[in-house]
């Protein structure tokens, strides 16, 4: 896993209070414990802070799992 994705996973596990070795592929909105709409906005805010980007509402609406979060970072050139 790249440093970027390690940092991204840390955002999810820290926000959702999950073990740091939680499988990234298991991260899914409304299924992963703690990932509700409020936690979602906390993840968005943490990603914006960490990677220096600003997500639009389409990205917020579509980021339902870890892979989609990676795609957003790719799109922003992170």
């Amino acid at each position: 896993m790249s440093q970027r994705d390690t940092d991204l996973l840390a955002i999810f596990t820290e926000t959702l209070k999950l073990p740091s070795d939680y499988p990234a592929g298991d991260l899914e909105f409304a299924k992963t414990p703690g990932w509700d709409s409020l936690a979602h906005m906390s993840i968005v805010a943490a990603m914006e802070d960490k990677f220096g980007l600003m997500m639009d509402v389409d990205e917020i609406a579509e980021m339902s799992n870890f892979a989609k979060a990676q795609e957003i970072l790719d799109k922003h050139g992170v």
Partner: protein
Amino acid sequence: MSTVTFVRPTRDDAALMLGWRSQPRVTEFMKTDFTQPLEAQVAWLEACETRTDYEHWLACYKGEKFGFINISWHDGRREADWGYYIGEESRTLLGATVPAYFYNHVFFELGLSAVYANVAEPNVGVLRLHRSHGYEDVGRIEKGIDKPALTCDLLRLRLAAETWAENFKPLHRYRAPWEPRRTPALAAGA
């Protein structure tokens, strides 16, 4: 153009709204369980068009309706009670953005000084959301919900415009068009 918009419900939305409001996920912490027939829902929507103390909207994402917001004005229209729910479960990812769109509209465009929300005490998700947005607890309505499936207190919360303006600047970017009332005199707040 914003992909999120807020439109006025019409009688054509009655069945959609009735379906949302009847979902256990939505009705669980409401003051009443919803059992009225479609005809009554249509009549209620039409009656709302002429009310001066109440307004409502449907939240849309890319034109698809996904949630409901209502506001009940206090005298003087400087403060109001409000509530919302996400009707389309597939759009709950946007659930925490809807209040931000609402606060930016009512505080920055309509000039309200504060909004209030009554939240069922067991509804910890919404309590957490509101408190994270700067609400303060200002009261308790004992047995504010008293229905067969649930009896509990309602907590009364208040969010001041200055709190939102000063402490939540990253959320001020959530702006969207809000459809005005169709009745011109009421649109002017008469």
